[in-house]
C-alpha cells in the first residue's frame, strides 16, 4: 500500500451562540482513504465535540456532504489523494445555503420538504431511473425492476448553486431535477410550481450543480429540459383552453 501522509485537517467549528472559527488537527492518513475516514478519526481520537453527519459510507444516504477545500464533495467517496498532498491542508466546511446545526452538520429540512411537496420519487422503475446515462447492463428486459433513484438528496447541488445563495425560496437543482424525472405533462399544479419566479427561471445557467453532483443526476441538463417541458405545456394549454 502507499505511504502515509501527514496532513492538517482544518475543521470549521460553530456551536450555538458562538462565532464560527477553524480548529486544526494534525493527522496521519493513508492517501487512499476517504476524507470521511479522516474526519471520523479526528472525532474518535482527538475531539468528541466535532459534529458531523454520516451514515452509509458508500454514497447512497447523502448524509456526509461537505465543502472540502472550497468544493462540494461527498466525503465518503472522496479520496484524500484527490484533494490534498503530503504536508497539505484539508479544509472542511459545512454545505452552503443550509442553516448550520453545529460544526459540519447542516439542516437540510428545506430540501426534503420541497422534494416531498413536489412528489419526487425515491424509487422508480429501473428503465426510468436509468434512461439517461444507462449503464452497460441495462436491457429492455429490466422493465419490471424497481430501484432507488439516482438522486441521494445530498444537497451538494444546492450548496454549489449561486442562485440558491441569493434566494432561499428557489426550489433548487435537486427538486427541479426530480420534477423533470416525473414529467409535468397534464399536471397543471406542478406546472405552476415550476413555471415561477423561484422555479425553473431562477436558474441562471451556472452549471455548478452538475459539476458537483456525485450521483449521475445531471441537474443542469434536467432543469433545461424542464424548461422545454414547461414551454410545451404552456403552448398546449394556450391552444386547448380556447
Amino acid at each position, binding site marked *: *500500500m502507499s505511504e502515509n501522509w501527514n496532513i492538517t485537517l482544518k475543521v470549521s467549528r460553530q*456551536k*450555538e*451562540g458562538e462565532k464560527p472559527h477553524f480548529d486544526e488537527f494534525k493527522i496521519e492518513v493513508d492517501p487512499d*482513504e*476517504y476524507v470521511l*475516514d479522516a474526519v*471520523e*478519526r479526528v472525532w*474518535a*481520537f482527538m475531539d*468528541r*465535540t466535532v*459534529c*458531523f*453527519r*454520516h*451514515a*452509509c*459510507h*458508500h*454514497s*447512497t*444516504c*447523502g*448524509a456526509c456532504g461537505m465543502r472540502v477545500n472550497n468544493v462540494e464533495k461527498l466525503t*465518503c*467517496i472522496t479520496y484524500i489523494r484527490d484533494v490534498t498532498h503530503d504536508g497539505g491542508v484539508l479544509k472542511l466546511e459545512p454545505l452552503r445555503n443550509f442553516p448550520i*446545526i*453545529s460544526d459540519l*452538520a447542516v439542516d*437540510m*429540512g428545506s430540501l*426534503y*420538504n420541497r*422534494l*416531498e411537496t413536489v412528489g419526487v420519487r*425515491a*424509487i422508480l422503475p*429501473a428503465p426510468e431511473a*436509468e434512461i439517461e446515462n444507462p*449503464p*452497460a*447492463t441495462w*436491457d429492455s428486459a*429490466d422493465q419490471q*425492476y*424497481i*430501484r*432507488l*433513484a*439516482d438522486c*441521494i438528496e445530498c444537497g451538494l447541488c444546492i450548496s454549489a448553486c449561486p442562485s440558491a445563495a441569493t434566494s432561499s425560496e428557489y426550489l433548487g437543482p435537486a427538486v427541479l431535477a426530480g420534477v423533470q424525472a416525473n414529467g409535468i405533462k397534464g399536471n397543471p399544479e406542478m406546472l405552476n410550481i415550476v413555471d415561477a419566479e423561484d422555479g425553473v427561471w431562477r436558474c441562471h445557467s451556472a452549471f455548478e450543480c452538475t459539476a458537483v453532483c456525485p*450521483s*449521475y443526476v445531471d441537474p443542469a441538463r434536467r432543469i433545461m429540459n424542464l424548461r422545454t417541458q414547461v414551454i410545451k405545456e404552456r403552448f398546449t394549454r394556450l391552444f386547448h383552453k380556447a
Partner: protein
Amino acid sequence: MSKPQAIIVGAGFTGAATAHDLALRGFDVTVIERGDICNGTSGRTHGLLHCGGRYAVKDQESAIECIDENILLRKIVPQVIEPNGGLFIALNESDLQYRDVFIQGCEACHIPLEELTPEQALRLEPNINPKLLTAFLIPDGTFDPLRLALSFAATAKKNGAKFRIFTEATSLILDGKGGVIGVNILDRASNKPYELRADIVVNATGAWAGEIAEMAGASVPVKPTPGVMVAYDQRFVQRAINRLNTPGDGDIVLPQRRMVVVGTTSFEIDDLDYVPVLEDHVKLMLERGAELIPGIRNARVRGKYMATRPLISSGSGRSAARTFKCYDHKETHNIDGLVTITGGKATTLRAMAEGTADMVCKKLGLNAPCTTKDVLLLSYRQYYSLPN
C-alpha cells in the same frame, strides 16, 4: 392521565423502530443519539432485505424471523426497498453439496424458493458467473439504510416522539435504590449539559449496548463484530446474489442504485468507535465478489468501510446466533428502569422493537398491544418536516 415517559438511547434501526412502536402505544418518547440518525452500525449495512435463506440451515429461528419481517416490511415501507428478489448460486461441488440441506431448510422456514437452470439464471442476470451449476430464486430485496430508519422515525414523530441528535448520554441518573430514572445528557450542538427523566430507559445502542449498560452497573453479552463492505461503481445485477453454501466471507453481492456492494467479513475488536478498513479484507471481497460476478474485477471501488455488528455471544463469529435479545435489567442485575435490546439484524428491526416494547409495557404494567404490523410508514422525508 399523563403518558408514560420513555427515553431511547440510540437512533439506529432499533431506536427508530422502538420509538415508532412505543409512540403508537401511547408513550411519550424521546430518542437521544450522540451523532445523527444511523451514524453507527445501522447506516452501514449493505442493505440486504434478507429472505432468511442464509440462515435456513444452521439458524432457523433467525431465518423464520427474516422471512416474516421481509414480507411485513415490503408491506409497510415499500418506498425504501428495491424488491427485485435474489439468487443463491452454486459455483462448485462444495456448493452443490449444500443444495439439499438448503432446500430442506428453506422449506422448514416457509421461505419460497424456485430452482433455476444455469441458463434461466443467466437470462435473468447476465452478469453472474457463467459457470454456475445451479441457482435458487428467493425473495430477497435491497433497502436504503438511512431511509429505512427515517421512515420509522418520521412515523414516530407524527405520533409525538422527539429525536435529539448530537445529544450524548454521559451517564444514567440512578435513584440510589438500584434503579435508573433518567439520563444525563450533553448536547453537543450547544455544548450544554442537561437532564432527562423517564419511567423507562431503553438502551438501543446495538454494538455499544455494553457501554451504556455499564453506566448502570449492568452488562450485556454483546460482542462487537465488525466486517468490511466494498461498493463498486456499476450496477451489474438487479437482484441480490448469494453464494449457496454455509455463511462465509464475501458471499453476498447486492445492487444499490448504480453500485453493487460486496460483503462481508467477521472479526472481533475492542475499540468500537473507529474501526480501520483492513486492506486484506478488501482484497478478499474483490476475490469472492468476482467469483459471483466476474465483471467486478473491471469495476472501480466507490467506497469501502467497516460496520460493527452487535452479536450476542453464544458461540463466536459466524456461529453466534443472529437473533436478537431483550434484557430486563431488573432480572439480570436487579436494576430497575432499564432494558437493553441488542443483537438482531436490520431486516428484523420491527420485530426487535415489538419485543422491546412488549417488555417495557410488561414492566410498567401497561396493557398496550403492538400495532406496528398494520401501520404503513410515512415517507422518510417527513422526518425533516415534522416538528420535534
